[in-house]
């Protein structure tokens, strides 16, 4: 769970790239796809919470991972999300 937010590929396109560069780009893209997939699955939620906590300079310690996921399902309990047909 890296802190780094995978930015969008911003490399220059058009110019000829060497083999290592191509490999590097491919790795970046693969990493980005994995990051998106994990995001869709909801795995990044705790990181998002930590980032938010830090940014908002809220007082007190943030919930640890275990507490966060418990809190998350508790919130789902009180606020169910529909699934479509």
């Amino acid at each position, binding site marked *: 769970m890296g802190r780094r937010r995978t930015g969008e590929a911003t490399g220059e396109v058009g110019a000829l790239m060497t083999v290592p560069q191509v490999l590097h780009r491919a790795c970046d893209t693969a990493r980005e796809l994995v990051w998106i997939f994990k995001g869709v699955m909801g795995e990044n939620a705790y990181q998002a*919470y930590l980032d938010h906590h830090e940014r908002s300079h809220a007082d007190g310690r943030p919930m640890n991972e275990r507490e966060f996921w418990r809190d998350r399902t508790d919130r789902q309990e009180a606020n169910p999300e529909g699934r479509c047909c």
Partner: protein
Amino acid sequence: MSKQQGGSHRQDPVLATDPALPPVAVDPQRAEAEERHWTPMKIVLWIAIALLGGVAWTILAVVRGETVNAIWFVFAAVCTYLIAYRFYSKFIERNLLKPDDRRATPAEYRADGKDYAATDRRVLFGHHFAAIAGAGPLVGPVLAAQMGYLPGTVWIIVGVIFAGAVQDYLVLFFSMRRGGRSLGQMAREELGVIGGTAALIATLTIMIIIVAILALVVVNALGESPWGVFSVSMTIPIALFMGVYLRYLRPGRVTEVSLIGFVLLLLAIIGGGWIADTAWGTELFTLDRTTIAWGIIIYGFIAAILPVWLLLAPRDYLSTFMKIGTIGMLAVAIVITRPEINVPAVTEFASTGTGPVVPGTLFPFLFVTIACGALSGFHALIASGTTPKMLEKERQSRFIGYGGMLMESFVAIMALVAALSIDRGIYFAMNSSGAATGGTIEGAVAFVNGLGLTGVDLAPDTLSTLASNVGEESIVSRTGGAPTLAVGIAQIMQGVFGGAGMMAFWYHFAIMFEALFILTAVDAGTRVARFMLQDSIGNFVPRFRDTSWRIGAWICTAIMVAGWGAILIMGVTDPLGGINTLFPLFGIANQLLAAIALAVCMAICAKRGLFRVLWIPALPLAFAAVVTITASFLKIFSPVPAIGYWAQNAAFRDALDAGEQSFGTAQSVEAMEAVVRNTVIQGTLSIVFVVLSIIVIASAIIATIKAYRNGGGTETEDAPVASRIFAPSGLVTTPAEKELQQQWAAVEPARRPARSGH
């Protein structure tokens, strides 16, 4: 904060964005110039897309050869979606919604790092898609395939562009501008007490009927199928294990646990095959439909009161995982195998209305049979639920709302292709009700060959061979759409992986995949409906408002489960077939919800003073209203017993009065009495739906006319807050957006109100 503002001259207040930060929105003139600047490359690209789409449509609609290759469906759909997305949704954005990226979204100004969390647009697209797409777009097109390939294809593609995607986009945008308010809350605000209350009751009854019919689809797929019953039941222990794993062993490792769950699921499917081969396995897991229906009812109640972490959340992860994986896999497989389809473009059932799968003529019944995939009201509940609270920037609502629905429409097209790719004789043998075929191979062969369809000559061993290939006792009268789709998917997938020997695996994989979505929708639907009911009862008995009050929760859950359970049992035991009598109600309910959502959107647009482009929501609203009200009236007043519930009711009552012992497909007096009972319920539900919808639509029209007279109405949006973040709006980052991204990247991290890490 509401303020009266003058109609079309309304100008958004200039938001003072932080001068110390780079711009939070692309300069409108720059964006406009980029969009309007047509480079030769762009022109060539769009001409190529238009030409390819045009050729595909010509082959489907004009040439109509003996056989049509499935790839043309894919091209027609994708090219049309691209054009609609680029031009029509842009038109809506520019002229109707006018998003402003200088305004913060609820995810920014209410950020709590939990429910309100700005989410990367591509991630949110996946979330939103996973929430809207389920079994609906997989089932409806299969049933509508009896009218030929063309009506369904045209409705799915044209319908999504002008109706379904518009509804999703508008609801998402309006909810986002209102802090993520729900459709029900918006209806109350825009339409007043009567319209709002009618919308609430309609939503609640619609949820009951939708859950019931989805459950019926599962029951029909699992009845008399030991393999299916075993592997689908195994999803429960698998989900429980995943829940415990996430709670106690490795919290937060969602992808990891989903992978483990997926592997266990595959083992459950393979294991199901072994167990169905043993004598004890067959004996233990061969269950009749009524038993399975009771099983689902009991399961539904327990699942809805168990803690979320134990069953619902883990199964939801598994369902999302399967959804994205399987749909992607199916798309690839269709493109690789490119099956030939030899179904007529339009069959006689479109005009005669005597189709054995679902009765009724093309208008209006095609449009209610295919609801999800073209226009699905249920989406309005999602688009006004979680998604608007996670949007990072206003302009992204087009990609998520409109684009997400286009994606679901594509799923529907793939389901249609899969259903069309199987032999027509088999299709009708599987989808004609047991009442027509008698449930036997001989009966099915006689019935299907007796339909008088050109080119259809069904042989008994075709059915028995297919049944043994897919590992089932029989495939006759497996109504509901899911088994047909599973056969179609199995045929397509075995062409890519595994060959004929793998057909049984793929068949049960597809059944599992649909059952998983449906069971998730059943739990989630029951829970959501329970909360709505508690909230409603809370108006009279305040104690019920407290959702953590156990007894209240249990009572309301029991009421909801009893509601859908009764309809489910009615469908399972229906002497007339079940799916063919109930499925139209599902479509009508879903489309009526869409009409309600579009009516709310129209009222909002009118209050914003946007009369010149009011047709954008009004056109699909008018269509949905005409279709559903006509379909409801036919269901209520039609003198044809197969179509009109009350005509059927009268016919059976007369027969009972005349002292007959059997009538039509009902073989006993009890069965005849059951038909009388069922038709009363179905007919009453039809009346309730249509009356509620007319109330909602009428109150929206009144609100619209009032707004027109006043040149606008009360603004119900939240007060604008200046945004402090930037993100691109579409899938592809434009040059201007890239420039801004670089400016933001250069800002010192400490000073940067960084976008969420999620």
